[in-house]
């Protein structure tokens, strides 16, 4: 047995855009155990239900995170809409779907860039973020905000995407698809990329299920779970299958997210083709919610949970967001066991950690 020591990783670390701390118990250069700590930037957003009514909480929830902002708002609104028992207009469902998939593309491109940066491929990092700018431009054009959309409301959406903008979205999707095809060759075939990702940080399907991991992290280990198949927004009207891989390593996580980018492009095209030419954007909501509901949506990082409990008053009794990263940290710690110290940064990145979400 080699000499054991504890190396603190984070909360400030070059691969971490946000703070998480992990005590790495190492034996020589091998990690034996990883003990995580979160809570450095806990904001208590859930506690704001006392001060903000259920409509205002939409804005609060959207600000949980800058990357999955739209999906947070959508998940919360869908939960409250279930309590009210309202069915939002079809056009609003399609608009939510288009925005959700644009947001997923933005998130995955951001992650692919960070991953490339993590394994030292600077050029690839810039390529990913250059393409991501086009997606951010779409977000700004359609919602007015590059990151925080603020278009959701309980009962539907507040903004429309006119026909000329839908055409621009399709044109941009064509451009992004061509760029992604080129980037995909590098991510999937380049020797240096494969040498850093293949066979590293393997988790089996059984481990994933035992540790409750979600999203692309779980799908990369063969777990077929995609909450979009629950049928919220316009997903029941679109054709798609969850993308999975069986390998469970870093390469598989990269593969799943890259393929999901193409899937998002396809879903956006389907949604633009099927969106009703005109129609209401929202239904009128009368009164206050009374009841409780557990809503699940598929964010870019995986399944997110929204628990809403109301008693007929404007302020909710409880609103709880369980973010994907919160569910993925136990899987991360398991994955870190028995790996080389040099791979820790990359492994942390491959769960696509969003600590802002986690510290809601």
């Amino acid at each position, binding site marked *: 047995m080699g000499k054991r020591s504890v190396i603190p990783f984070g909360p400030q670390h070059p691969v971490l855009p946000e703070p998480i701390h992990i005590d790495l118990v190492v034996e020589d250069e091998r990690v034996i155990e990883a*003990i995580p*700590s*979160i*809570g*450095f930037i*806990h904001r*208590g957003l*859930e*506690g704001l239900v*006392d001060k903000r009514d259920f409509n205002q909480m939409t804005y609060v929830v959207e600000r949980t995170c800058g990357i999955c902002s739209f999906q947070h708002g959508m998940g919360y609104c869908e939960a409250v809409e279930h309590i009210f028992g309202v069915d939002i207009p079809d056009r609003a469902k399609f608009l939510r779907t288009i925005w959700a998939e644009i947001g997923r593309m933005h998130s995955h491109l951001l992650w692919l860039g960070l991953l490339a940066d993590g394994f030292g491929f600077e050029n690839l990092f810039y390529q990913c973020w250059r393409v991501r700018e086009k997606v951010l431009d779409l977000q700004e054009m359609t919602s007015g905000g590059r990151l925080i959309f603020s278009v959701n409301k309980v009962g539907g959406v507040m903004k429309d995407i006119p026909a000329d903008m839908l055409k621009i979205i399709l044109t941009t999707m064509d451009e992004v698809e061509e760029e992604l095809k080129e980037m995909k060759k590098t991510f999937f075939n380049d020797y240096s990329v494969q040498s850093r990702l293949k066979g590293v940080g393997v988790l089996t399907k059984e481990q994933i*299920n*035992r*540790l*409750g991991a979600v999203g692309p992290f779980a799908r990369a280990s063969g*777990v*077929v*779970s995609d*909450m979009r*198949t*629950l*049928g919220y927004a316009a*997903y*029941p009207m*679109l*054709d*798609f*299958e*969850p993308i999975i891989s069986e390998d469970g390593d870093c390469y598989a996580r990269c593969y799943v997210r890259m393929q999901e980018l193409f899937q998002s492009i396809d879903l956006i095209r389907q949604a633009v083709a099927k969106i009703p030419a005109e129609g209401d954007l929202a239904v009128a909501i009368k009164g206050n919610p009374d009841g409780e*509901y*557990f809503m*699940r949506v598929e964010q870019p990082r995986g*399944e997110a*949970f929204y*628990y809403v*409990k109301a008693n007929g008053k404007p302020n909710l*009794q*409880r609103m*709880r967001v*369980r973010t994907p990263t*919160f*569910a993925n*940290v*136990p899987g991360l710690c398991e994955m870190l066991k028995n790996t080389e110290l040099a791979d820790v940064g990359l492994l942390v990145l491959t769960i696509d950690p969003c600590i802002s979400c986690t*510290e809601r």
Partner: protein
Amino acid sequence: MGEIRNPENILEVIEADDLLKRSLELTKSGYRFSQACAAFVDGKFELSYSFSDYETYQLHNLRVVIDPATEIPSITEIVPAAVFYENEMKELFGVKIKMINLDYENKLYRIRQEAPMGPQKTEEEN
């Protein structure tokens, strides 16, 4: 067209003593743990433990309602993934949970106030 499955959520109210038994039964029958959370409603803790079946997408919620003074067992021995959730319930709400596998001793979140969303908060409001 991909298959869309949207089963109704199940909410099963159980006694605190049955928590471990039902958690074990659900995990044995193929459900996996999804989340746990607390709410402080009308002077009692409402604890929700959610389990999902990824074959059918069925969500099964176990609901335990307890007095603030009541201590409940940790499910982390059965469900290792519940560590953060139980620490969170303990720190933010003051739920008394015994035998958490990895007990952060109120240091999961760096917050000054003890159990800011628990009974203490209600007392301050009154």
